[in-house]
């Protein structure tokens, strides 16, 4: 069957992530595997001690984890953080990227899981000495311990990024289990005083970094969805072949055969769309953001239909969290609401039918098939 589900981003990174996920999927997350495995170094340039890898490399890791149903905030810690840090001046960026790569600073973006890094929830005000930050950020991923938060802010009509000690921010107002089984938290910053040095970037560089982080988050979440779809369908096929009712395998019922066939065809379409997105990204296409929004809307539709089909075809097992297909269905639906939901992206697409959301990106090459 594996021939029906070829890897999107094959290679050693995929294999390693897959093995790790397979071994750890049934356990509570211990420590900080993302940093211990060195994944935060993936996008960090070599001069800063990183691997100088591409988004496709990171997508390999995302795919490996999604294939075996492990939830880790790889997009947040390994893509959003290093890409936002690039907005800082060369020396500051270098210092923090180095710390990210070696795992000595555990930086989490203080952004809502449901919004893109372009969404600004926090405002900064310049004081005589230092700044104060105010705002409410709901649904920050706190699955892994953080020493610092990276906060995109609005400041006197300008854009800025702050790097703030986690201790200074203090505990979140509330903690939750997210739909996909991560730890989410709501923060309320009430005139939080931070030193002058906390403001690490301002102006056009910030906007460019936020746009890059947004594109990366959308791309990687799409890769997660396609990998999860493959797992969902693979598990459903196994179930239909193994489960017997009325003296025959479920796979002998034509209605179920057609339903799984529909899922597979949707998966192929979704995969094609994601490959197209990565190509546009690699070619620095002018239309990239529009394509990413389209993909977001389309993948949400396909993924939900497939998730619901898989649940249905598993019968009672489809509602039990012990079943990988069930958890994968949950993951797919949760992913719809990450980095903007379909209603938000549709609103933006309808408001801007022509592409005018140009984002310039340095041309990175990847190995996407």
């Amino acid at each position, binding site marked *: 069957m594996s021939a029906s589900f070829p890897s999107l981003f094959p290679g050693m990174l995929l294999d390693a992530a897959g093995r790790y996920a397979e071994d750890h999927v049934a356990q509570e997350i211990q420590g900080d595997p993302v940093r211990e495995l060195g994944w935060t170094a993936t996008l960090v340039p070599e001069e800063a001690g990183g691997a100088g890898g591409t988004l496709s490399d990171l997508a390999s890791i995302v795919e490996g984890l999604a294939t075996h149903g492990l939830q880790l905030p790889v997009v947040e810690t390994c893509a959003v953080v290093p890409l936002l840090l690039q907005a800082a001046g060369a020396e500051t960026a270098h210092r923090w990227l180095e710390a990210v790569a070696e795992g000595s600073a555990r930086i989490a973006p203080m952004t809502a899981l449901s919004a893109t890094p372009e969404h600004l929830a926090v405002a900064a005000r310049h004081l005589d000495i230092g700044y104060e930050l105010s705002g409410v950020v709901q*649904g920050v991923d706190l699955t892994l311990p953080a020493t610092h938060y990276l906060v995109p802010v609005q400041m006197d009509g300008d854009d800025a990024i702050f790097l703030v000690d986690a201790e200074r921010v203090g505990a979140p107002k509330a903690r939750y289990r997210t*739909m996909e089984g991560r730890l989410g938290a*709501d923060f309320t910053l009430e005139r939080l005083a931070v030193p002058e040095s906390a403001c690490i970037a301002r102006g056009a560089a910030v906007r460019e970094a936020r746009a890059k982080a947004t594109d990366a988050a959308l791309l990687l979440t799409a890769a997660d969805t396609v990998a999860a779809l493959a797992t969902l369908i693979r598990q459903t096929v196994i179930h239909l072949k193994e489960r017997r009712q009325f003296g025959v395998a479920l796979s002998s019922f034509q209605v179920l055969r057609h339903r799984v066939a529909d899922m597979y065809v949707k998966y192929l379409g979704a995969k094609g769309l994601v490959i197209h997105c990565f190509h546009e990204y690699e070619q620095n296409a002018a239309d990239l953001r529009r394509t990413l929004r389209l993909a977001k809307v389309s993948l949400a539709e396909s993924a939900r239909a497939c998730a619901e089909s898989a649940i*249905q075809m598993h019968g009672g097992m489809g*509602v039990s969290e012990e079943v990988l297909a069930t958890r994968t269905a949950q993951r797919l639906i949760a992913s719809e609401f990450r980095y903007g939901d379909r*209603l*938000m992206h549709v*609103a933006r697409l309808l408001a801007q039918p022509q592409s005018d959301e140009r984002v310039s990106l340095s041309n990175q090459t990847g190995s996407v098939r």
Partner: protein
Amino acid sequence: MSIDYAGFRRELESFARSACPPEIRAVVAAGQKITKREYQAWQQILNAQGWGAPSWPREAGGTGWDIRQRLIFEEVMAENDCPPLYHHGLGHIGPVIIRFGTPDQKARFLPRILDGSDWWCQGYSEPGSGSDLASLSTSARLEGGAWVVNGQKIWTSHAHEASMIYMLVRTSKEAKKQEGISLLLVPMDTPGITVRPIKTIDGWHHLNEVFFDDVRVRADNLIGEVGKGWTCAKFLLERERLPPANVARLELMRRQVTQLVEEAAQAAAGQRDFGGLHHKLLLCEADVKGARVMMAQATDDLIHQRPLGVQPSAIKMTCADVAQRLTTIALDAVGPDAAHRFLADAGEDVPDATWIQNYMFTRARTIAGGTSEVQRNVVANELLGA
């Protein structure tokens, strides 16, 4: 004597408003999962009023209401955020005991359903027997004047809070798998019963596995004839697919979801496009109206003992479909705000996120009580022949 339906409705309305405790109405209004606590308190209030069993005949302790009164009752209760009646006792096993039980069984079990002191769950499905229920293998053999039960049930809703289980057991092996099945009533505190919770995608605890290890049950807890339990099971399943509250509850849900969408649209201030959701809501509104008439006709047939045909299947499919569409709309409306708040640290329900739980929970509407594929087979067999 002709019935004053308008007066009847007013009487119910004022009762629902004054008698149903606000904390129970709040749970229903918020779309939270209703547990034994709410069901039981409300059942006791209704019973004290003499309305403990709206669907039972008077001689069994019911209200003896006619079809129209029963539908009015369901609508008024749903309109006023009162909990539905607890189906396993009143809707499922109660009518079976009334129809197939001995006078002694009626005397022992029916009053305790009415006053809410017994809490029932349904032990039908087994790990190897879901859609193919008749292949079940949990066994009961007569030994020293008692049935000795061994085996396992699964997906047993409410087993962790139930005091009684009605279960299908194999009492003999016959050539035809539907034969040799019996319906047994078993107290949940009988030694040898173990209940293990199942974690479900909705984050609520309602499903369980139930294990039976040499469980001894008094011989006169078997309903109907030995080996003829399938007849009772089919009688019961037909009713399970026709719960009178279903459509009234759909209308309640439609109102809740409509409000949710309005609030979300307002909060989004043009940043999200709600056009598609409004369109879907209108279709649900229309479908609920159609379902309401389907339901009334089927209930009328039930009362006049006319054959129900495919109606239970058609109504179950329709209600399941509309419920799923409504909670899907709710999911779309609250998703961005609620997907990360799925479960609070302390385990209590979070407003809005409750609707994501409801979305997950209603996935089971096309699975439990006979899957939609099985219902389609019933309808297709009627139209095309088996």
